[in-house]
């Protein structure tokens, strides 16, 4: 069964998303179940192989081969013991649907079910271990999910119905032989309790996990959010930050309006001052290149030799790292004619945008 679940989950994780399950919850549960099963499987497989396989082979030979293999897998899983308790303890989140299907299946697979019953009881008697209620609920939930996933597919329906048939059998016979499983299943306490509302609570938990994940991103983004814990505090910080950013935008636009009587945002003028600081801050990766670009004719207002070269280099400078051309730059800089100011535009923009 678990293998079946694992297969289905592996193949269609998005269905679980549709179901509202967060993968982390599922993954955890699955991991624990797998651990448990691996534990038990080692001890059981030797014992069961001889008993189960011939019986199953006999009875399932009339079944569809694909289903057969899956049923085989399921039966071999020791976690079958899970389902017995499940039925008993809750009134049927999934049971009604499954049992109705099982009724139809029973008639088809009557011989099989008898053997399954036998197998299960033998399994139980040997091991005597039973997972606790929550894990079974989860397992049945998986069954349910599988059931829903495959929808109208007959194969899935038959498999699920087989399982429920087995659980019914187990339920009736094996109530007494219970023991807790070795590994503490406290992870699964959160799993649904078997009512319709449980799917809601699980979905809610998935939703909450999603929200907390996104809040973590926000924590990285908003400065000062690390010190606050809890949703309310973080939301407070986020609100303050957004408000402050919006106010900054307002203020800066006012400042720009005040500084610029004519709204002429020609960038060259604005960045002429920025040059010395930029020059100081990092080595100019420039190369004096030949003024070949035609567009620079458009840029020029006067004949600029060095200036154009400088202007040309940004497009070339990126692939080239270390330039030795700090000298020409300073030369150009010291010449404060407006024409040369143009040449710095490109650098300034680069600087500004970096």
């Amino acid at each position, binding site marked *: 069964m678990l293998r079946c679940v694992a297969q289905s989950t592996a193949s269609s994780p998005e269905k679980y998303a549709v179901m509202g399950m967060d993968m982390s919850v599922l993954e955890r549960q699955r991991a624990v179940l797998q651990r448990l099963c691996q534990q038990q499987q080692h001890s059981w497989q030797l014992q069961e192989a001889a008993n189960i396989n011939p019986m199953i082979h006999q009875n399932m030979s009339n079944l569809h081969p694909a289903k057969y293999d899956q049923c085989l897998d399921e039966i071999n899983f020791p976690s079958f013991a899970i389902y017995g308790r499940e039925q008993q303890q809750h009134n049927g989140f999934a049971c009604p649907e499954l049992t109705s299907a099982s009724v139809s299946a029973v008639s088809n697979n009557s011989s099989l079910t008898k053997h399954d019953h036998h197998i299960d009881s033998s399994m139980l008697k040997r091991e005597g271990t039973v997972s606790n209620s929550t894990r079974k609920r989860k397992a049945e939930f998986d069954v349910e999910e599988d059931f829903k996933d495959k929808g109208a597919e007959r194969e899935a329906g038959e498999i699920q119905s087989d399982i429920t048939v087995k659980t019914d059998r187990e339920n009736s016979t094996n109530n007494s032989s219970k023991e807790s499983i070795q590994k503490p299943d406290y992870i699964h306490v959160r799993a649904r309790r078997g009512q319709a509302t449980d799917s809601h609570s699980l979905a809610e938990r998935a939703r909450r996990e999603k929200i907390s994940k996104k809040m973590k991103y*926000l924590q990285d983004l908003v400065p000062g959010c690390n010190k606050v814990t809890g949703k309310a505090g973080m939301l407070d910080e986020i609100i303050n930050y957004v408000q402050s950013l919006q106010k900054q935008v307002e203020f800066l*636009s006012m*400042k720009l309006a005040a500084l610029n009587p*004519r709204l002429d945002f020609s960038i060259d*003028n604005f960045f002429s001052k920025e040059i010395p600081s930029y020059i100081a801050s990092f080595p100019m990766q420039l190369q004096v290149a030949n003024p070949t670009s035609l567009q620079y004719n458009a840029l020029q207002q006067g004949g600029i030799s060095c200036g154009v070269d400088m202007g040309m280099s940004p497009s070339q400078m990126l692939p080239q790292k270390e330039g030795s051309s700090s000298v020409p730059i300073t030369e150009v800089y010291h010449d404060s004619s407006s024409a040369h*100011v143009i040449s710095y535009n490109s650098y300034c923009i680069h600087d500004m945008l970096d």
Partner: protein
Amino acid sequence: MKARTGYSTSLKQEFLKKWIKGIRIYSNFKKDMNILERKKAIKLSADLAIASTRNASTRWSRTLTANISKNETNKIFVEQIFSDSEVIKKEAPSRLMARSNRIASKKIWRRSHITQIKARKMGPYAVKARSIAKKLVKNRTKVLKSLVPGGENMDGISLIKETLDYIVSLRVQVDVMRRLASAAENSTRLGLSSKCSVHWLQGIFTVLDHWCAMVH
């Protein structure tokens, strides 16, 4: 890290280009504005520019563009600058609104039902503490929804997603504006005359394009 800085740089470039373009169009549109009008023009162009960098893929950008376009005088301005694709996307929110109303009513029922169950399970005090905490969170999400454009009808998860995106864009906006403002300040301090010709801007943009081409 490299990828992130590269991304934000290109974002800033894009924003700057669009912003300057918007301002130019606005100033051609309307000559001789007083300071308040200028401020409005700057802010408007900035908002439009930053919203358009998202290409209407996020809720807040669509709402922002839609809110700006609501004003008749702005509409012409908007349409002049940007393609119609963003203005068209206005219709998307109405569909979501109906769905979110349904979700809201369902949530209200669920909440009342769940509080009943919880009151039975835990003591009344625990429920009260939890409900107070929830109320706090609720109030703050309400405030956040009012801050983020288009946040009114969103549920928790998408609200946080939109807030994330909105914060990133706001930061880009503030960063670019601040640099421009400081540069303008410095240039006025130096007393350099302004060379206000579209000529220059075109030159700048070609360099920018070249640089973009190099980077990408």
